[in-house]
């Protein structure tokens, strides 16, 4: 059992495993995303209230899920790195931060695009978007902190600590923002209530979510592989690979 | 041979692609003095930080009185007095205040008598209520040495303790070290000065090529 974890931490083993997994994951995620996109954009029925503009949820919701899941991935990798000094954990921590930040940004942009036809404004301070914005800054803090140290391994340790501090805070932040929104918004309109979704709209959404999770895994693997090649460039197995 | 206080096994340290030292097995017992030599950048300060427990960037084992150092951290730290490159002398406090703070953190002989004796020995007694920021570099170094003399630690790890001290001061301090070592303190130090010590001592040189 220990051996399995030990192997998990070895960059070389990860590189080899990801070489075989990547084509499958890539094809599967592409298939799911394309299917779900076509289904959602062309074939799902129009929404009663929002017309066609609701279709942006097919990108907005998955990226929002991943923004949060990505933060926890990053934090868990950070914790593993701090406790067990696993090299792969450090690499995952480092690559997950910018990927997660981009996901969050995507969620914010698509949220704004959704907002314009629905509520008439490009930006509305509702609870979900505000929480997403705070999450974006949490990500950027981790990215900036990791890059500001001269020694990379210490920068990763500091970033791991910050990610863990953020993890403790995220539930508190989300709850506070939720509550803040309910305090300040007029009682008549409820922007954040999710209308019960028709199954014909739900299926493409679920496929899209799974597709996005797989896409996230693909992105992490690709970036991690690049990072591994760069870090281990002097080792023999990389040099053999290059030949 | 008396039992070793601090010993290492297979100690190695890498910085980036450079190996600073590897497979280092050193040991020091009560009443011994070990000098670590080597050129600038050979890893002397890093080794001292690793031994003191300030850096965890190493592989290998360190033992305190035969036990793994992680398991006896508190006892080790109670018996260690570390003097790094940055002397830890607070400029905004007086000598007396600096020493009082230090004695609250570490086991010290902090009676008023002992403090007075040590300060007089280092010619600092007159300045005990002066802010350390107003003292010369040599005097501030001696404040750091005063801490050493007050502490009850059995192991001293000193990184360049003679910086900024004039020749006579160095000779006086060498004498103090010799006296303490003969009373049982173990000392590990690095220095650029050519030491003239009246006691037998060992030295290792980092970065030396193996024959």
């Amino acid at each position: 059992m220990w051996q399995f974890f030990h192997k998990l931490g070895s960059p070389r083993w990860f590189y080899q495993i990801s070489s075989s997994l990547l084509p499958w994951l890539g094809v599967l995620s592409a298939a799911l995303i394309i299917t779900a996109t076509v289904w959602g954009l062309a074939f799902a029925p129009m929404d009663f209230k929002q017309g066609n503009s609701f279709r942006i949820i097919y990108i907005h919701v998955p990226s929002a899920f991943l923004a949060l899941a990505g933060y926890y991935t990053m934090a868990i990798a950070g914790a593993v790195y701090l406790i067990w000094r696993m090299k792969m954990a450090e690499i995952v921590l480092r690559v997950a931060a910018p990927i997660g930040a981009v996901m969050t940004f995507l969620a914010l942009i698509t949220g704004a695009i959704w907002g314009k036809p629905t509520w008439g404004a490009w930006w509305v301070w509702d609870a979900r978007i505000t929480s997403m914005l705070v999450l974006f800054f949490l990500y950027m803090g981790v990215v900036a902190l990791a890059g500001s140290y001269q020694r990379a391994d210490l920068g990763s340790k500091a970033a791991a600590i910050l990610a863990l501090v953020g993890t403790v805070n995220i539930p508190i932040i989300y709850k506070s923002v939720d509550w803040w929104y309910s305090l300040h918004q007029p009682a008549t309109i409820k922007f954040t209530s999710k209308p019960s979704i028709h199954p014909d709209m739900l299926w493409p959404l679920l496929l899209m979510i799974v597709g996005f999770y797989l896409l996230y895994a693909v992105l992490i693997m690709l970036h991690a592989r690049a990072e591994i090649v760069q870090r281990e460039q002097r080792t023999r197995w990389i040099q053999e690979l290059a030949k | 041979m008396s039992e070793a206080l601090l010993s290492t096994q297979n100690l190695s340290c890498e910085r980036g692609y450079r190996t600073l030292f590897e497979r280092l097995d050193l040991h020091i017992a009560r009443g011994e003095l070990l000098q670590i030599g080597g050129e600038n950048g050979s890893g002397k300060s890093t080794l001292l930080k690793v031994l003191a427990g300030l850096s965890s960037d190493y592989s290998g084992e360190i033992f305190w009185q035969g036990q793994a150092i992680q398991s006896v951290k508190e006892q080790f730290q109670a018996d260690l007095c570390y003097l790094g490159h940055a002397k830890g002398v607070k400029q905004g406090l007086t000598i007396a205040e600096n020493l009082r703070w230090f004695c609250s953190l570490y086991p010290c002989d902090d009676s008023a008598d002992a403090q007075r004796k040590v300060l007089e020995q280092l010619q600092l007694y007159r300045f005990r209520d002066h802010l350390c920021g107003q003292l010369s570099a040599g005097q501030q170094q001696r404040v750091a040495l005063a801490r050493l003399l007050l502490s009850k630690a059995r192991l001293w790890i000193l990184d360049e303790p003679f910086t900024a001290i004039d020749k006579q001061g160095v000779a006086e301090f060498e004498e103090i070290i010799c006296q303490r070592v003969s009373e049982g303190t173990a000392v590990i130090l690095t220095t650029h000065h050519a030491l003239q010590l009246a006691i037998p001592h060992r030295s290792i040189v980092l970065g030396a090529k193996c024959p």
Partner: protein
Amino acid sequence: MSLASACWQMLRRDLTLLARRKMDVLNPLLFGFLVALLFPLGLGPAPASLALVAPGLLWIIALLSCLWATDGVFDEDFHDGSLALILLSPQPAYFLIMARLMAHWLASGFIVALVSPVLALMLYLPSEAMGVLFLSLLLGSASLVCIGAVGAALTVNVRNGGVLLSLIVLPLYVPVIIFGSAAVQAAAQLQDSTAYLAILAAMSLLAIVLVPLAITAALRINVDAA
């Protein structure tokens, strides 16, 4: 050489140092007043509009003041070697750091709370809310100082770490400002703000207990690097 006396000496030492560098304590407060000056200049001096935003504004000013005050709380000790002494002490660093945070809170958050009625007058906060303003700042500034200190510990060896500090710390301040300004807002509308004050107190307690762990870890990393 007990833990209690070590903490007391730490507190005493930090307060002595702060007392000898009064400008370091005064500067963040002056900044706070400067910001208080900028808002009427930007929003117009009409009492009605200022009174409307006063609760939130006062909390933002207090928050920024605490943030600036915690920037560099560990810098000097890091650079002159005192931090190594603290970390190598047989006394648990957890409590020593807590004593230091206490000293810094007394010199920053506590003073901001004391001075807040003056700022409140300048921004036309209804007098009914003054008491709650003071109380909310007293209870909430502890978490502000603690969280700020985590950022300071992480950026202690970073050049121009002040901006990075703000980026790291401000998202974490979100819950505190939400409930802090809500408390003052409720009081200004003659409603009960006890619940908000209780939440602020809870957050501060959580911060006080958890933050020294993160700070010690961050400081050890940086001492390792130097």
